[in-house]
Structures are given as C-alpha cells and as structure tokens.
C-alpha cells in the first residue's frame, strides 16, 4: 500500500468537506466516543422516528480516515431502519472506505462505527421494555 492509494481524492474530499457534519437540536439519541491513544473524538447524533433513522449527524475531530469514515457511515445509514445498525459492521465500513487500511489505522476507521452502534444500542435498550 502506498500513501497515494490510501489518501485518494475521495477520502481527502470527505475529510475536507465532511457530510452530515454538525449538530441537531433534539437528537433522539447521541453517543460520543474517543480514541485515548490519539485523542480523536466522534459524537454521533440520531433522530429516530418509528424505528427509522430520519436524520444522522456527527461532530468531532480526527484524521482524514476517521472523518471520512464518519461521513460515509452517516450517508449510508440515513433513512435506514435502526435495527439495521445491528448488522452494520467492520467489513461494511471498510467496503465503504474502499481503501487499504493498515493495522494501527483500523482504530481510526472504526471509531465512528463504535459510536453509532453504541447510540443505536442505547436507543434499542431503552425502547425494548
């Protein structure tokens, strides 16, 4: 893998112009997670109605990989059923990113996934009983 393969135009574009970046006024559920070894932080906010993800936004700071990944995840999940997050996994995120990710950078790629899953589980946990 070379740097050029990893930092493709599209990744840089998602980094410099992230999608669904910002906050919403009344998220149904939100979860913030951070990567203690590097200080990256991602907060995922979801507006959920009738189990459908009406809106999803993220906020945070991080490297090109983590920000691009968060952007792609929000685009992918917007409009989907909240239950689908259960099956949304590492492989799917890596497929969305579509670039080779080496060992240490995996944590960057997966931070947003962790945050969105925790948000979904918190929501589902509260609404299950």
């Amino acid at each position, binding site marked *: 893998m070379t740097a050029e393969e990893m*930092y493709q135009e599209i990744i840089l574009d998602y980094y410099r112009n992230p999608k669904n970046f910002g906050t919403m006024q009344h998220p149904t559920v939100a979860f913030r997670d951070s990567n203690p070894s590097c200080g990256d932080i991602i907060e995922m906010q979801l507006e959920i109605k009738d189990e459908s993800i009406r809106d999803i936004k993220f906020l945070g700071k991080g*490297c*090109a990989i983590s920000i691009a990944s968060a952007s792609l995840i929000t685009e992918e999940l917007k409009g989907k059923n909240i239950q689908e997050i259960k099956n949304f996994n590492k492989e799917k995120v890596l497929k969305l990113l579509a670039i080779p990710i080496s060992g240490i950078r995996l944590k*960057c790629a997966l931070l947003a996934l962790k945050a969105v899953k925790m948000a979904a589980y918190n929501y589902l946990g509260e609404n299950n009983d």
Partner: protein
Amino acid sequence: MAAIDVRKDFPILKRKVHEKKLIYLDSAATSQKPIQVINTITDFYKNYNTNIHRALHTLSDEATTLYETARKKIASFINANPEEIIFTKNATEGLNLLAFTFGKDRVKENDIILVTEMEHHSNLVPWQQLAKQQKAKLSFIPVTAEGKLDLETAENLLKQKPKLFAFTHVSNVLGTINPAKQLIELAKKYNVPTILDASQSVPHMPVDVRDLDCDFLVFSGHKMLGPTGIGVLYGKKQHLQNMNPFLTGGDMIKEVSYTETSWNDLPWKFEAGTPPIAEVIGLGAAVDYLQKIGMKSIQDHEQELTAYALEQLQKIKQVKIYGSQQEQIGVIAFNLADIHAHDLATVVDEEGIAIRSGHHCAQPLVEKLGVPATARMSFYIYTTKKDIDKAIKAIKKAKKVFKL
C-alpha cells in the same frame, strides 16, 4: 560529539521499515538502546541472576553489589547521594508515590496544589486526583503564546502558598526548557516544596539536584538509553525520612511481627518487593554510556539539531511550528496545513521515518494550542542532520499526497 560515531552502537538503526532505512525521530517517547546496555542485561541473566538483599550465597552477593553499584552511578550522575535514589517503575510511578505519600499527608481541604499548563498527564492526573480527594484546589501556571511559562503569574501563584509545586523541566510537546532553578528559588522564597519532572531533561542535558535544589525529581530510564520498567525518584533525605512508605511488603521492612512492622532504612523503605534488578543494572550501563560522551556534548548536539530542524521546517510553506523556538531542546511540535498529524505520520512512515502524532500525553496543552493533534519530531544522540533532511523531504512529499 559526532552522532555518526555512536550510531554503530545501536543495532536497531540497521533495520529497515517499508524497505527503507529506519529513521527514528521519536526519542522523546522512548530512546533506542545501545549494544552496551543490551549486553549488560543479557550478561546479568547469563552470569549473575538471582534475587538481591536476601541470601548469603555468592550469586546473591554479586547481584546485590551490581544493583547497588548502579544506584551509586545513577546518584552521582545527578549529584545525589545513593540513599536519596529510589527505584520505581517509571517517572509516572515516582509522581504517584509522591502524591500518595508526601502529597496526601500535606495537602488538606482548601489547600492549593500548583502545577503548570504544560504538564504531561503523568504530572497532572495524580495531582488533579489528589486535589479532588482532599477537596483542595489545583492551580496552573499559564503557558504563554510563545510556549513559555508565565513567570509573573508564577510568582503570584506561589505567593498564595501552595502546599506543593510540581512542574516539568523540559516540555515533551514544545521542547521548552523551563527556568527550573529560577522557579525553585522563587518557590523557596515562599517555602513551597518543589517536584521536578525531569523525564525530558535528565536524558538530554546536565542535571544537578544540588545545584537546582529541588525537593524531589523524577525520571524514566527508558528515555535515556536504559531499559523499560525502571524509573528514578530523587528526594531530599529529610523528606524521605519523614515520609510514610508507599507500597509495603518484603524488602522494605526492618522487623515484622504479626501486628507491627518497622521500616527499612533509606532508600529501601520505598522499594517493596523484588525490584527490577536487571533493569537497574541496565540503567547503570546507560549512565556509563552517557557519561562517556558527556551530557554537555549531548546537549550541544541536540540544540544544534533542533535549530537546524526548525530552520528547515520553516522553509516549508504551510508548516506551523508550536513553541518558542528559543530555549528549546530535542523536541519540535508542528502541523502541515489542514492535515491531521496521524495522516502526516502515516505518509512519512512509508519512508521509514518514525515521528509521533497526537496529543503526546498532554491533551490539555495541545487543546490550548488550538489543534486536535500535532506531529512531533524528537532527537537524541544518534540523530543526524541527514535524518532531518530525509524527514523534511518526506514532509514535502506529504504535501503532494494531500494535494496542497
């Protein structure tokens, strides 16, 4: 000194990373080890290994002598007495020892603990937690826009008679050399005991505890050519004598009954359990190695490299350097345009160059710089100008990768 001459002693510098020769610019995190230190440790395990201070057999006698001789070397290296040298796991443990003993006995409700805004988490979190436990207040000497301590505010804060003052000698982010002697003198004027975090100074410049006259000082062996798992706490004898032990158990005792225990003499009172014997002896070998070169030469070499690297970095448009660029040693924090430091580190790693990225265990300071992270290069005795040239070339390549 000539870095070229010492490089042959560092086997790791021969290895390749991504098929390129390794260029190690992360010595502030941990230094590489010369063959002399590696051999001393293997020699110990091959020929002397046993527990110390315990048995009467020959091996134990020899191992104890090696261990205590290393303590003497390390003591004289910073101009202390051997009984004032306590072995810990690392600088972090030394600071925790102080927080849990000296600090806890001294700091009470509404008291003040004074630190600075440029501390490593190791010299921040123990004091922050102690302040919480004792309902005391934690005060900070501010860092100025140039990356120096605000000395005027420092005096005002010391006037409020904090119960202790802990600060770093050299910043592991900005490379700033703080005026330790001046600050300690000021603290003494107000009878405030001082704790110096010398993790980034003892490896890189002459440090003399008598001359500084600090009450306590800590550092880690692994940043000064020694092995991991060994750190040093220096304390003035009168303090160490009055302090309660930190950890209790074997070795730190004089007499034990089922109900009572009396403590061992200094320094063993603070060394509970089997210590890191091979690591102490390894650190002794590291001190021998450093002394052979001379700490003044090492300081000169690193300041020269720092000045050179700053000059080269400044030539790259879109590089932002943090810190004063004066009174700076061995460490440079910087960023390239809008590129996150991790991404920059990944690109230069491809060229075999190891730099650090992130908050460098000083998250509040990096936040104060107004960025999520910085890249950092740090140097040591084996670093050459050629290494820096290669790093500069790699940073220029990163500009292309990121379409800057």
